């Protein structure tokens, strides 16, 4: 038990719970256990540790890869089988029969545990599968227990009535102290990683290995990252990346390891900027030992700039749109699609025709417009339009006269492919309907590159 708790820190309560449920070999196992808790709270780790410690026969099934129930059944059977044989199992009934056969042959009443990781995926399969597993023990003659591991709560599994309720176990999020404790355990690997990447003098090495330095860093790190992210794995990754940067000035002898305020001043902007890269996992692994044949100066410089570029790209759609390269007419088609999506067809005539006649502004209309001003078309989201309308607007906004060629029509399909326009890929002759799914910022940036004023043609801005 002690050993187990060292292996899985900060989960004493849950470990105890699991032990109480499973621990006594001579007792019957509970029928089913339901474990929930958000991501990276150590659910799978706990279960696996406990089962290994108890050395029960168990099968772990990752439900995400089970797109057909057949895979689940076969995994279970082949996992329980001692020697490798080909198993065939198509239905639940086959599974029950197979389990019973196994019981007679080799298992007897030894405890067996089935672990369903990411059990929320079971909901996508047939409705009865999950309920069948919940009462698997009633169906077969085994001392068997199903454990469901998921990040959803039990209530979101909508069962019909008559389901045997499982025993529920909740894994709470780690709090700040616990996170600190857990990441701190990794100090050795961090240091090792650091030493691998940099060449460090022995003197400084001693400095770096001091746990206080790392503790200080972690405090600073968590103060920034604790709010947006509780995912332990991600936090570990980010900590590793940032610790390198934290230590950089120490290695270069610019800041002494004891000067905490200076180090904090050095790291806080870095932490803030890397907050934006959370979860993105860009590999900044520099091209390791560039082979002597090719030494392009530009390829080396790209990864450095790139991080910044990506950051910009994510934060502002404008640079994103400008980095986008599209053929000339495709740009116009995209603009036309946007206009078609965000203008009502009633206004087309007014917007796109030269002699549309004067529209009298009636007081009523003005009032009505003022009233709905909070629901501008541009903010309401795109509306569906037909191919004909798209082409009509396209020709209206394009100054030069070009024929309606197959190349042009192919561009529409390309835009759909690139997920700039949503629509059916197969061409329906009468009613091909599309929807533009890029935002105003993006469109105005694209329009800028071809010298086109979008605002002029949007009814909302009239």
């Amino acid at each position, binding site marked *: 038990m002690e050993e187990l708790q060292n292996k899985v820190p900060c989960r004493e309560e849950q470990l105890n719970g699991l032990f109480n449920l499973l621990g006594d070999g001579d007792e019957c196992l509970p029928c089913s256990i339901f474990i929930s808790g958000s991501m990276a709270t150590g659910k799978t780790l706990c279960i696996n540790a406990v089962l290994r410690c108890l050395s029960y026969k168990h099968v772990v099934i990752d439900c995400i890869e089970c797109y057909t129930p057949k895979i689940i059944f076969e995994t279970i059977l082949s996992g329980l089988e001692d020697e490798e044989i080909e198993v065939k199992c198509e239905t639940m009934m086959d599974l029950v029969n197979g389990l019973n056969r196994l019981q007679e042959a080799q298992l007897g009443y030894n405890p067996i545990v089935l672990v369903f990781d990411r059990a929320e995926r079971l909901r996508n399969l047939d409705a009865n599968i999950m309920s069948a597993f919940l009462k698997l023990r009633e169906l077969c003659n085994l001392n068997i227990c199903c454990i469901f591991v998921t990040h959803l709560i039990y209530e979101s599994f909508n069962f019909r009535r008559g389901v045997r309720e499982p025993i529920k176990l909740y894994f709470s999020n780690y709090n700040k102290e616990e996170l600190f404790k857990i990441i701190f355990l990794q100090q050795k690997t961090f240091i090792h990683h650091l030493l691998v990447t940099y060449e460090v003098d022995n003197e400084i090495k001693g400095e770096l290995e001091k746990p206080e330095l790392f503790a200080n860093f972690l405090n600073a790190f968590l103060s920034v990252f604790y709010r947006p992210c509780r995912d332990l794995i991600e936090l570990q990754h980010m900590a590793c990346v940032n610790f390198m940067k934290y230590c950089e000035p120490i290695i270069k002898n610019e800041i002494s390891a004891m000067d905490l305020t200076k180090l904090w001043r050095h790291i806080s902007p870095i932490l803030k900027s890397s907050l934006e890269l959370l979860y993105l996992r860009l590999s900044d692994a520099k091209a390791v030992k560039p082979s002597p044949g090719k030494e392009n100066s530009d390829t080396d410089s790209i990864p450095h700039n790139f991080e910044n570029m990506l950051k910009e790209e994510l934060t502002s759609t404008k640079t994103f749109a400008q980095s986008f390269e599209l053929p000339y007419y495709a740009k116009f088609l995209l603009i036309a699609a946007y206009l078609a999506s965000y203008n009502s067809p009633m206004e087309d005539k007014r917007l796109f025709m030269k002699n549309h006649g004067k529209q009298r502004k009636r007081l009523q209309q003005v009032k009505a417009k003022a009233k709905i001003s909070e629901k501008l078309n541009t903010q309401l989201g795109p509306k569906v339009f037909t191919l004909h309308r798209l082409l009509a607007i396209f020709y209206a906004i394009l100054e030069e006269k070009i*024929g309606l060629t197959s*190349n*042009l029509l192919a561009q529409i399909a390309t835009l759909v492919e690139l997920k700039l326009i949503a629509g059916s890929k197969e061409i329906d002759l009468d009613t091909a309907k599309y929807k533009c799914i890029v935002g105003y910022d993006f469109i105005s940036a694209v329009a800028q590159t071809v010298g086109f004023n979008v605002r002029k043609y949007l009814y909302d801005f009239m």
Partner: protein
Amino acid sequence: MDTTASVSKGVFLFTNGFKKGKGIKKKSEQPLFEKMFMKEPWYETYKQNWNYIEQQLQDLHHKSYSVLLNNVVDYIKYSGINETATLEGVIPSATLLTGVNQPDHVSQFTALIDIIRDEVTPHVALVNSQDAPSIKHLVENTVWQLINGKTALENYDEEDEHISPTKKLRKSQCTMKALKNWYESRHQSPTKKKTLPLKKPLVIIIPDFESFNCSVLQDFVMIVSGYVSIMPIVLVFGVATSVSALHNSFPYHVSSKLLIKVFHSHSSVVYMNQVLEDIFLTHTCPFQLSGKAFELLTDVFLFYDFSVTGLIQSIKYCMMEHFYGDNLQSLCCDREQLEELIMKLSAEDLESIRQLMSFRPFLEQQDCRTKIKLFEDDNFFREALYHELDRHHDYLYSFYMCLRLLCVFVKDLPKNTLGKTVREIYTKCSAECVTETTAFKDCMQLLKFQSQFKMVESIKNALKIINSYLQVVSPVKPLLTSPTKNNSNNLSLNDDLGQNFVKSLRVHLLTFLRQIENANTETTVLTNVSPEADGNDENVPGNRYKLKEKLLKATRVDRVQSEFEMVRSRFVSYLEDMFSKGLQSARTQPFHEILLFTDVSNVRKNIIGSPRGAVHTALSNPVHYLQCSCCQLPSSDSVTESLPDVCLAYKLHRECGMYINLYDWLQAFATVLHPDEEDDQRHQHPLTQLRFTRAVAELQFLGFIKSYKRKTDHVMRLTW
């Protein structure tokens, strides 16, 4: 590239080039082509040319991809070593930003697979979005390819003692578990194989990221991440738009499983420029596109599709069009073969050459006796032809060189009146005599104000180009000079093009360079004598500022032309002279039709399909396609009874508004068919009604009308 070497290459490819196959459609037709045209000289030349171009293209492909692909491959190689990441279930993945032109990607990815197979691992799977509509298909396809790709390779690998499981897995059995078992059996059981440096990674390539269903990919990534600790798997994504597409379509818990490294590939515009400049706009490529045709093709590229493959196919089409069925065009070949081919020409062929438009101005230059001789004596004509074509090659040689020189000088000028790239300048130059355009004159005017530093730099660049051109030619030199001596006696020549031209150009430029560089010191002499010698290049930038100051002073005092300015203006006028000699339009050259392809309208019609236009012409003017004598119409709106029913109905429906009353339409229809009958009876013929109904049904089928629900006797128009 060496011209002689290129010929041998072309011929070499000729023998075995077609085994590889260019496209499925071509392949199936190849035997027919071969049989029909094998004997024709024009076909042989065409094939030689095309093979040569293809060879060049492949070289270029390799060159331009290699850097990128090597980076990717290095990354894949290295990714296996990074153990710490894989323990957490993080998948190393490479992201290739490929640009929007989808058709070009295919070759890129096949090249990538080849390299990976050769250098890293035999286990590569490439899954297209069409093959993977659901997670089931995706996993099955991937696993199947990984397992069977290896067995296919194992056949070559005799010493591999681990005998592959002979029973092939069925597709439905290909699950990740099966893959795991297979991988373990392959890499762990043979304990002898400890010499293997590492577990070989499994590479999964997803070339078209955008068209995948997001949720499918998310699931796939999660599944793979579960197995990464057991098998080293590397993902390669091909992303057409930008990296953020990747991040936008994956939620946090998925994207945190990916360790993404991004690789940029060339933008397709750059690549196209490269293809055009290195392959088609050179003197080594005998087939030339006229400026108009060239512009058309690049327009298609820039405005519509950004597809280099498409561009190359269009050029291929132009070549076929150019060569097809005409023995004249067999002369469109390399210089060395020219003589031989001319000798092979029949009298008929020669006659058709005499009828070329550009022969006439050439004829007028000759004196009377030569004229007669040219017409009567085939052998004499052959010789003259050979000579002229040879001169034409010389002309091309100096033309393209001048083109590049012009590009060097003009590139950095403000406003870009002539364009920035070689292809833009080419369209201008080949369309007309560029030196007479105002754009060119503006450019020269601007050159007169260029600073010394820039001037020196661009002259140096120009010299580089000239040197590279001279290197190319020098081995051919003996071949070149001997024929010119042969028949220079009785034809009036102005042989100042070709190599000699280039050589003299080089000498001139060198002297100008020296003068301009030295001019600097001369100007300083005017005001104060500076002892230090700043003729060398390193000091030039500093000198520029000095020069500027001095020039400023000079303007304040009195505009005395400095030495540099004088040299500069002399240089610019020399450039003008030189370009007007070198950049004559190809149309002024005799026999240019043989090398130059000009039939733009035909190409436009055939390359850019316009389905609606075709339907409209067919319906409103059926003569265009039927070629019958009965339906000749005075104008496109008029109708006669001899028109096919569908056309008639179509024309009548064009006169209507949004909704068409069927009865009225039928009336009109009947009136045209039977103009001389009573109003009431016309439409009562069952035959008329039948024909009308059928025509309407056909129009509906073509998508011009559809039935209208509110008024049952009306139909709605769908086109305008």
